[in-house]
């Protein structure tokens, strides 16, 4: 009996907290369909009339489509590179019994803690003629996400039995062939997690885009920021632009929630 009363109190507390966490996004949503006069105050009540033309203006003026395409190019390329290369590297690191494997693991994992040296990275990119290029951004993003990807892959590969490697080799598979044919498909759960993570990391990245690229290469969230700079007081249109950038994230969250939370916590627990 006592326990159920406690649960009622906790239920009320959590409803209050959930509202507190939802209000900012609700505010964005309702104000995105208000008129310019109504948006003089960012209240949370529904507007008298819905002004969907704010959204038309976002697509006409805000470079939202450009941001979407940039985001797709940058995110997908980084995800493919990091998933393929990090899984290969992790396979060697967790299977080989040579000393170098342990050293490589430490070098990769140090990259999770040590911050990247942004200004010298600019110099490296500049030296290679890669400032404000897609491939420059992709490579820097990949270098940034590889440490955590290797960390998660190594943890997962250590649970895949070695016997599978032996069997594949007896069947006449070479090293790479064996890896991509037999091992890589078994890593699917962690690959999905790493893929979503790295996708979000690039999609939401601020530092690399701000330092190494100009607005024509920016992803959607950054285009909202530059749009905000161009129309200071038309908050209804800014809110509409924010909603547009949140839609892809919302879809990913609904589809991938299981992988996002399980993968992240798995990595953190193993650490």
């Amino acid at each position, binding site marked *: 009996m006592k326990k159920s009363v406690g649960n009622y109190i906790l239920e009320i507390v*959590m409803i209050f907290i*959930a509202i507190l966490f939802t209000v900012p996004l609700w505010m964005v949503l309702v104000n995105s369909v208000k008129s310019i006069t109504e948006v003089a*105050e960012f*209240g949370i009540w529904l507007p008298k009339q819905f002004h969907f033309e704010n959204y038309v203006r976002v697509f006409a003026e805000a470079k939202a489509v450009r941001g979407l395409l940039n985001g797709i190019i940058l995110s997908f390329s980084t995800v493919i590179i990091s998933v393929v290369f990090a899984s290969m590297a992790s396979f060697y690191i967790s299977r080989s019994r040579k000393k170098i494997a342990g050293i490589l693991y430490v070098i990769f994992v140090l990259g999770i803690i040590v911050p990247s040296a942004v200004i*010298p990275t600019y110099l490296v990119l500049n030296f290679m003629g890669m400032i404000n290029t897609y491939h420059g951004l992709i*490579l820097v993003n990949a270098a940034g996400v590889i440490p955590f990807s290797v960390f998660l892959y190594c943890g997962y590969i250590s649970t895949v039995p070695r016997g599978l490697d032996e069997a594949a080799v007896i069947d006449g598979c*070479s090293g790479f062939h064996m890896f991509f044919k037999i091992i890589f498909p078994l890593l699917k759960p962690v690959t999905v997690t790493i893929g979503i993570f790295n996708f979000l990391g690039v999609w939401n990245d601020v530092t690399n885009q701000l330092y190494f690229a100009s607005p024509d290469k920016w992803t959607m969230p950054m285009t909202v920021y530059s749009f905000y700079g161009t129309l200071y007081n038309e908050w209804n249109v*800014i809110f509409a632009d924010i909603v547009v950038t949140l839609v892809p994230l919302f879809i990913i969250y609904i589809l991938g929630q299981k992988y996002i939370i399980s993968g992240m916590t798995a990595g953190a627990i193993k650490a």
Partner: protein
Amino acid sequence: MEDSKYTLAFVVPAFSIYLIFFILPCIAQIFVAFTDWSLDFFNNPQFNGIDNFKMMFTDPVFFKALTNTIYYTVVTTVLKVSLGLAFAVILNRKLKFTNIYRAIIFSPIMVSTVVVALIFNAIYHPERGLLNLFLRGIGLGALAKPWLLDVKYAMNAACVMDIWIGTGMLMAIFLAGIQAIPKDYYEAAVIDGANEFKKFFKITLPLIFSSLTVNTALGLIAGLKVFGSIFALTNGGPNDATQVVGTFLFRYFGQGMIGYTAAVGLVFTIFISLVSFFQIGWMRKKEVEL
């Protein structure tokens, strides 16, 4: 040879990218920090000894940025870890909407920090903002403040934003730790007459100490490295009240001072690394003692 099917060729692609675009810049930073390299005289950098470091340690804005960063890191880490743990303990119970609460609290981590900063710009807006609107609405108009324009409140306003962003992630990690604890530990404790508090301090906390270590590390690293959210919220203002090392670096980079920013970056890299290693080492030792 047992290892013949595992060749170093597997590591070469990932390591090359990591070497050129991460390790090389880190090493280059050590050298660039001792030069007068600037965008204005790009092709003629000269070593200038410890001039950059002298400049840094006599620069009041640098000290402001450093103390602000430490304040921000401590406040956000303490609050995110305690709130994350509290939510995890509560949401480990069977409430009516447990899964919805979890999903809602976790969701802000998905949103880009610059977008979150724009949303909080709107919430904190002096005349139009939701926060002041709410305060006036419930008759507490006297408490309505220009949150981001007043040096007294801007930093704490930024901390609140970060707590909104990051608490859910720490909650999820704590929750996974709690769910891994075998149920019979609690059943045994109940038979021995333990109450909820005893159960938390004697069973839950010791057994999720590794999650506590990880979450503290995540909080510290995220706090020390903070850039995007503060950049878009206040860009260090008003009057450097929210200037953190991340925004400080970007400002001097914008002025073309490559050597100086590299020096600041180098000092800060060493600082973050030392803090992380000491924190993780110290808490790992505690874990063993428990």
